């Protein structure tokens, strides 16, 4: 990168806010999906909206692509740098600017860590509902970009439900306010479009969040079944009875074994484990928990435990939360996928995964948000065995295709990023993708903000798109650092 441009960046963010040394740059070469690595030309670490704006203006003038980065925990390569561009890290913009309890709003800078929002309002009985498992480290800006979810989003909704307003630096350096503190601001729902846009529409520099009051009581039920099919039937039974649990999570035997080995959660050794969390008024949770127990028994549960105390509850959740990392004990490497299916397709898709897995001879552990049909199949392999990584990638891809065929999605919360962009052309028809491009072109006509992510093929705005040529199977990702 030319010295004059670096000097300009240095003048904006200070010497302390600019990284150009290759050893230091390598910290930023990938996100949580470590199989993709690209060294950026520079990393800038602004501390204010004005600095972000000034940096983006330089990028716009010089046509330098930029990639925003929060905590770098993304699992789809969203924060992967581009070789001829810079990374703009929001990590130093990490102040909670305002807490308005009567109106249940919190205003934060994008670098604020997810859990810190809850920590700040918990003494007053509130919490910030979207709870990705990475909430101890991931940033609100990253959550906004990915529309992140978590176990409790089944009841409380995803990030998009909890973001009311955004301050955004557009790719041309203009500062705009989308949405606001109040609901239904006149005009297009641009916060609704920006949330989940994976850094491709600009950089969020301020976020207005909604916080939620903690429920009166929380109870978790653990139920052991012989198979995930039986457990899946119980999930459908619970939903059909008109209940909306705070969370319904499922693990198969391989995942249970891994979790046991890692954290001794004291799970029963079974074919399908269900965790159901109910929250709300004490009297209601009491009644409904009994009903959940009955449904589970009817569907074949042979052991049921209900955790009443906070400590019990935490113990039951430890195994589930540690499941990803724990799977690392079963194999040297694994690929985690994030497909979604309609709940009722679960038995079919599970048996298909089993068939595919035994065909190629690779084990697949399954951990999922069963309530909303979000699967996290973990494809285990050993890269020391020649060809096994390719097999694993193919299997992971075939599982995504199963999800598409079942009427589902290739990603429920991790985003498309770099990893799954070729699958977008399998999930959507060309006119759908072209229509989405209209949005990008309105925000970023020069394709500077996280270019070439999410969509299968780069396009120039205004270009007449030709006939789409299918690409070879896209490489699925490896996520080893949990």
């Amino acid at each position, binding site marked *: 990168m030319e010295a004059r441009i670096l000097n300009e960046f240095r003048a904006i963010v200070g010497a302390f806010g600019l990284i150009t040394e290759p050893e230091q740059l390598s910290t930023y070469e990938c996100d949580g999906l470590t199989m993709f690595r690209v060294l950026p030309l520079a990393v800038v670490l602004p501390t204010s909206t004005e600095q972000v704006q000034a940096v983006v203006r330089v990028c716009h003038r010089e046509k330098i692509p930029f990639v925003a980065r929060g905590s770098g925990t993304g699992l789809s390569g969203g924060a992967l740098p581009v070789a001829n561009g810079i990374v703009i890290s929001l990590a130093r913009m990490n102040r909670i600017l305002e807490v308005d309890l009567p109106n249940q709003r919190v205003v934060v800078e994008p670098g604020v860590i997810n859990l810190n929002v809850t920590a700040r309002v918990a003494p007053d009985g509130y919490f910030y509902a979207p709870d990705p498992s990475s909430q101890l480290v991931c940033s609100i800006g990253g959550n906004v970009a990915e529309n992140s979810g978590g176990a409790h989003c089944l009841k409380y909704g995803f990030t998009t439900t909890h973001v009311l307003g955004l301050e955004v630096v557009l790719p041309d350096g203009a500062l705009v*306010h989308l949405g606001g503190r109040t609901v239904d601001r006149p005009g297009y729902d641009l916060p609704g479009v920006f949330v989940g846009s994976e850094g491709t529409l600009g950089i969020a520099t301020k976020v207005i969040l909604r916080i939620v009051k903690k429920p009166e009581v929380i109870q978790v039920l653990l139920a052991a079944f012989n198979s995930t099919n039986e457990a899946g039937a119980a999930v459908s039974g619970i939903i059909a009875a008109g209940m909306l649990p705070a969370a319904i999570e499922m693990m198969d035997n391989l995942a249970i074994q891994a979790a046991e080995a890692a954290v001794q959660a004291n799970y029963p050794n079974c074919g399908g484990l269900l965790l159901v969390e109910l929250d709300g008024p004490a009297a209601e949770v009491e009644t409904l928990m009994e009903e959940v127990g009955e449904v589970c028994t009817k569907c074949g549960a042979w052991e049921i435990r209900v955790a009443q105390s906070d400590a019990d509850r935490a113990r039951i959740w430890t195994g589930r939360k540690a499941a990803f990392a724990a799977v690392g004990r079963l194999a040297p490497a694994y690929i985690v996928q994030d497909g979604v299916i309609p709940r009722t397709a679960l038995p079919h898709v599970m048996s298909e995964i089993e068939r595919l897995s035994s065909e190629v001879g690779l084990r697949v552990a399954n951990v999922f948000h069963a309530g909303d049909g979000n699967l996290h199949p973990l494809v285990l392999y050993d890269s020391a065995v020649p060809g096994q990584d390719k097999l694993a990638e193919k299997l992971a891809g075939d599982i995504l295709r199963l999800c598409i065929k079942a009427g589902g999605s290739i990603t429920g919360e991790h985003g498309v990023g770099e990893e799954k962009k070729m699958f977008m052309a399998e999930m959507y028809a060309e006119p759908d993708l072209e229509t989405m491009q209209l949005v990008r072109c309105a925000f970023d006509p020069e394709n500077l903000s996280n270019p070439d992510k999410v969509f299968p093929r780069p396009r120039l705005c205004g270009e007449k798109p030709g006939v789409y040529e299918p690409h070879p199977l896209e490489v699925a990702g490896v996520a080893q650092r949990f």
Partner: protein
Amino acid sequence: MPGAPGVMTQVSWPELAEIVGKEHLGAATAADAIDGVEAQMVAEPGTAEDLARALRWAHAAGLKVSPRGGGTKLGWGNPPAACDLVLSTALLNRVLEHAWADMTVIVEAGCRVADLQKTLAEHGQRLALDPLWPERATIGGILSTNDSGTLRVRYGSLRDLIIGITVALPDGTLAKSGGKVVKNVAGYDLAKLFTGALGTLGVIVQAIFRLHPLPRESRSLSFSGAPEALNQLLLAIQSSKLTFTGLQLRAEPGSGRLDVRFDGTAAGIEAQVNQILQIAGSSVPSDAPANAWTAHQAIWEGAAPALVAKFSVLPAQFAAVCALVERAAAAQSLAWKIVVQSVGAGYVRLEGAEPALHTVLVTLHDELARMGGTVVALGCPLAVKRGLDVWGPPSDAQPLMVRVKQRFDPDGNLNPGRFIGGI
């Protein structure tokens, strides 16, 4: 010729008849006019594909098009700059798939809300939304106007309930986004972009929603008092651990009401009612009248001329808004009424002479903007709308919104001028 003068010299309507079928095209009447702007023809395509083709044809012919569902809110927005063709979704009225076990539904845009709810109720489910005039309003219409009601505090608004959409664009493209799973982050969320866009980007032809179970039991209470006291009580209830499914404040000269609704199991409701009595202290509630939860609809009825405007503020500002409206109305000798949901969206009704209504609207635009809120005139005589933007002052995102509009509707053919800032 009505509409855009001088734009078209010759319109070959028989071409359109060929596209949608003769029986689906007719001459417009005065009843089809939008804010006094009369269209020439009304088309009611029988399929989404025909609708898209009709749109493409109109686009090529340079015609201005206004999409229409049940026609219940055609007066919302600014008067259109022109309208040649009304494109009705009336025949796209099927519930295509109620996957009750997955709690999702695929429905065509012209389906009336009440008809959809009837189908869903067969399996004990509902679209957890109570918009205006459900007997007549269509899915496409409530989406385009982002209508909502009293259930919103618990289940969110349309943006939280819609999970997939199919739209027809001016160039005839039929495009989808989202799908039939409740969790999905693949690609941009066009469903949210089209929700509340007032038909200025394209025509919604199909939508997919997540559903909720019908409540087992329900009970509502109503407190009376002055708006200031009720606003405090509302904040106290909101910051308690109660799980209400409705919480609204109603006010008119000399009277105020706070309604709260609990749904759930009998035991849960009873426990919550006991708790709310403790929170309320000396203020003793009565059972809410059956019509409490249709107050947002009833506010549209009454003496004319009148102005009904939607406003958005923070929950702690409700009493201030009541005081503001009372003051502004008194200065112009207008009658007034307010109903606002605890999420911060409400309606104000003002009755009286047209110039006075116009004056108060201008005041409300200014004063609510100063409070950080917004107000949009929805129902009012044309004279009240003249000389102002019913949407209020645009934000710094207006140029971006214009760019979005230009990408989707480059020639400005869809509902020209009706949306914010002349979009």
